[in-house]
């Protein structure tokens, strides 16, 4: 006799868990099914090497929606936020070090360019204004451009009204952010190479685009929408790694009565007369549910978990056209001590924040040119963090872990396979680090290299795309994941999308999971009423 649930959620990533928590809180009998033995999807902490625990994939948090932290009472469920102070950009003969101490940062930038220092504060204010303005988007369901439902059109309408009220220069900046390349946008403001390059980096995270590709300014803004304790653009590390976030959400979900099963891989979604009626596990076990929510990405959900021929050809075609193109890799290092930077020797505050290998826009763009040619970047952009400096329990005493986010590592290689290029890629990253911190080679005890292929295999993210689909202009808002299907519902009744393939996209934000759950509850309410 198969069990019966109100809602079954495929995938125990942060979005799946957020959906589960909200649905359970809304009184639904909810089950989460996770393929792996650990929860969190890409927001996961694992002891990769004895005594060394890593945020294996996703490694910092900024975008997690404050309303989710509130609604799900995540602090009560163990979420602890540790600050990550500043960004250190080492160069051959100099460095750029920005910290949360505004005055110090001003002095530092003035050392490079008085004009840039002046522009910097103005720019920061503008971006915060822009983030404030666009933020409502993260909380709304995209209106269906073909048959607008006034209920959805309203928030959009008020957004447009707000736009016409903005000062002209902010309106212009907004249009530019939605259309320009990160480099072109920043070129208007700054002249200091490492400043522009380091700032431009948030424009390319997770995309198969370069800093000079139109559309990357939006991704820049996307990364400004983060709000921790009301402070925009604050990057933090959860205690215990990003898995700590997932565990807190899971605990919250359980407290609302949600059931969570790991090592329960779903084989397919059962569909009868155009309605999703449940799932069948790889074990053969059948689970029936009134609603199925997939936090898996659009390709996995519609092309792998649904029997082919079920979907309308047009819809299936547009899902096949939805682009993933993973472009980033991850290198996790277990170190015997701290790296020593030639330009700023010894341990110090500069190691406690992000360490960005981004000397110039040309450097960033050349890294992309390699990727366009189907090669990993010979000199990649690396965002390096040493979590043990703020969270020592992640490694044995005196030892350290280092997390390196790396671009570019294109999923599709022109020659060879990732299985035979994995270590060469790891070497290119270590070489890049060693150019600035030569002692790092001798400190390495263990090295874990994640290529896009590994991310796909381990996390089930198509082509290793960390956002479950590129954040390119044509794949945002009403087009995410397919034109006309940006409303978390799918052509299959009672099948919902609640992952980053849905609006508003990726990052440890939880927004898709939250809105999808609220939409479902709203619909149920409507039916009940």
């Amino acid at each position: 006799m198969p069990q019966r649930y109100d809602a079954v959620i495929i995938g125990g990533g942060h979005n799946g868990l957020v959906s589960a928590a909200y649905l359970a809180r809304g009184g639904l009998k909810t089950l989460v099914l996770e393929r792996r033995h650990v929860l969190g999807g890409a927001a996961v902490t694992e002891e990769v090497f004895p005594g060394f625990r890593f945020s294996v994939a996703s490694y910092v948090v900024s975008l997690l929606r404050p309303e989710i932290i509130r609604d799900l009472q995540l602090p009560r469920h163990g979420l602890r936020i540790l600050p990550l102070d500043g960004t250190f950009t080492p160069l051959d003969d100099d460095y750029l070090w920005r910290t949360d101490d505004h005055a110090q940062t001003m002095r530092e930038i003035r050392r490079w360019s008085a004009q840039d220092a002046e522009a910097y504060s103005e720019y920061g204010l503008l971006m915060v204004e822009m983030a404030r303005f666009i933020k409502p988007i993260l909380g709304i369901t995209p209106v269906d451009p073909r048959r607008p439902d006034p209920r959805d059109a309203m928030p959009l309408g008020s957004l447009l009204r707000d736009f016409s009220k903005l000062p002209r220069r902010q309106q212009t900046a907004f249009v530019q952010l939605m259309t320009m390349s990160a480099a072109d946008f920043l070129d208007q403001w700054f002249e200091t190479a490492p400043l522009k390059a380091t700032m431009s980096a948030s424009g390319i995270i997770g995309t198969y685009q370069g800093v000079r590709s139109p559309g990357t300014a939006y991704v820049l803004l996307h990364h400004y929408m983060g709000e921790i304790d009301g402070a925009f653009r604050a990057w933090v590390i959860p205690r215990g790694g990003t898995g700590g976030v997932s565990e807190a959400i899971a605990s919250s979900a359980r407290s609302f009565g949600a059931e969570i099963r790991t090592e329960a891989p779903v084989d397919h979604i059962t569909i009868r007369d155009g309605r999703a009626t449940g799932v069948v596990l790889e074990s053969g076990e059948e689970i029936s549910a009134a609603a199925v929510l997939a936090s898996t990405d659009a390709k996995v959900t519609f092309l792998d978990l649904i029997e082919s021929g079920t979907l309308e050809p047009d819809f299936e075609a547009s899902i096949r056209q939805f682009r993933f193109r993973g472009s980033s890799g991850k290198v996790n290092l277990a170190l015997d001590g701290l790296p020593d930077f030639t330009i700023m020797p010894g341990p110090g505050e500069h190691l406690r924040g992000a360490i960005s290998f981004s000397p110039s826009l040309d450097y960033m763009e050349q890294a992309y040119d390699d990727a366009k040619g189907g090669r990993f970047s010979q000199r990649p952009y690396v965002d390096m963090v040493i979590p043990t400096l703020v969270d020592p329990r992640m490694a044995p005493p005196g030892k350290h872990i280092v997390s390196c986010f790396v671009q570019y590592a294109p999923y599709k290689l022109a020659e060879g396979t990732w299985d035979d290029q994995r270590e060469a890629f790891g070497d290119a990253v270590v070489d890049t680090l060693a150019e600035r911190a030569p002692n790092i080679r001798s400190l390495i005890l263990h090295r874990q290299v994640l290529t896009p292929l590994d991310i796909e295999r381990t996390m089930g993210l198509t082509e290793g795309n960390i956002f479950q689909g590129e954040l390119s202009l044509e794949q945002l808002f009403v087009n995410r994941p397919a034109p006309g299907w940006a409303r978390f519902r799918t052509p299959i009744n009672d099948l919902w999308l609640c992952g980053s393939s849905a609006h508003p996209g990726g990052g440890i934000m939880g927004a898709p999971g939250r809105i999808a759950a609220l939409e479902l509850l709203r619909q149920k309410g409507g039916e009940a009423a």
Partner: protein
Amino acid sequence: MTTTATWDAIVLGGGHNALVCATYLARSGLSTLVVEQRPSVGGALATAEIVPGARIPVYAHTVGRLRGSIARELGLAADGLRLVQPAARVTSLRTDGPAITLWGDTTRTASELAIVSRADGAAWPAFDAEVRTLSGVLSRLMTITPPDPSGAAPGDVLSALRLGMHLRGLDEAHGRALLRVLPQSVADFLEDRFETDALRAMLAVRGIRYSSMGPHSAGTTQVLLADSAGNDGGAAGETVYARGGPGALASALASAARRAGAEIRTGSQVVAVRSAGGRATGIALASGEELTAAVVVSGLDPRQTLLDLVDPEVLGPRLGWQAGNLRQSGVTAKVSLALSELPRFSGLTGDDAAVRLRGRLLVAPSVRYLDVAHDAAKYGRMSDQPWLEATIPSLTDPLLVDGAAASGVRHVMSVLVQSAPRQLRDDSWDTARDTLLARTMAVLESVAPGIGALVVARQMHTPADMERDLGMTGGHPLHGEPSLDQWFAWRPMLGYARYRMPLEGLYLCGSGAHPGGGVTGVPGRNAAREVIADRKRS
């Protein structure tokens, strides 16, 4: 200082848009003066003698984007304009295979493509229809004055309504398609529709021509579709010659303007737009002459108009900063060749070779080739192997070389060369021009072995030359990048897309205004409409 008669309207520059605008203004009864710095009007529409008896397009080499409605309204045929449209629209010359030709005839194209790829041949007719539908929407958007999203201005509501109507004209599938493809990169757009790389490349060219964007740049699909908007281009793209060369269109436009009553002064360079109390009052010429007018309409590019002609005090620092950031750096050079005979092209050996050669000729073998050519420009370098779009107008218009027998010239060949960035990082165009010419000839040799030996005379126009000769900032033929950040309701800048510039009584009627560059004449007509509307109001 001498002050002369007051004009209702002074139009700055004698390019095609300025002439179109002046004609409509004069027709509405405004006393109109066109001021052109060069000895002749037409701007980038120019035909010049390369050797005695042989004439060749100097810059633009086709005129097929000119709006039929404008040509009719202006009666250009009466002024002797004859347009020639060859059956072959475009042919991709390849070293590694037979040439691919796209014809005006869709079925012929489909059956030829089927030889290269059955799937692509089968997909062609539907693709042509899709392009015509989507371009049709853009075509209608081009003729309207964009709404101003930055604040409700009179007329916005109306244009917004029209906008909605245009979109509702689409069926659901196309409506969705439009939403997705407009911001898409032309490489992705074509990858979703065709499997043959060479075919993708020959189509992608129209998404990046004259632009510093590459085939993977977001928004280049919109550029491709706009190229077919308001003309019979379809998926293959327009290929239309003006008999006698592009200069013939310029003279037709000039006589239309004169017929309408506009006066045209060549050889007079404007150095300033005068203003009083925040209103344009006239212009100053290099000669020292001051001309007063009720309105000044600039056919020059927006940067030049705002930064060089308007008093910075009047413009203000913020707009100055904004205008200074308009992206307008040209990447296209032009090579003109006089040939002793028709070159032989490898991969084009059939007896219908001469027919295929009448269309545009591309050396753009793959999307990757276009991309690599584009990459160089990002670092301020010219491409080692530029991509080329060439025409041999003497094939369709033998009169061009009528008197050149003595010079031993039987054909003229016009070649657009990309990428050749205006700003070279470690070189200047004075010294780099020969390098680019050599690289261009090398690329031509690869598809036409022995062509070098046929060259009787050659000319090269770099972006630097175009900037100097045509007075286009950055030598950018489109008066600004056709990218999404300088598009529609924010071309050239948000709040100034309705042809009215920050200075009251100053208008923009050139390619820097919506709907942008290309020989369409639409910015000129739209701007004239707004000028006339304002005159009626006041």
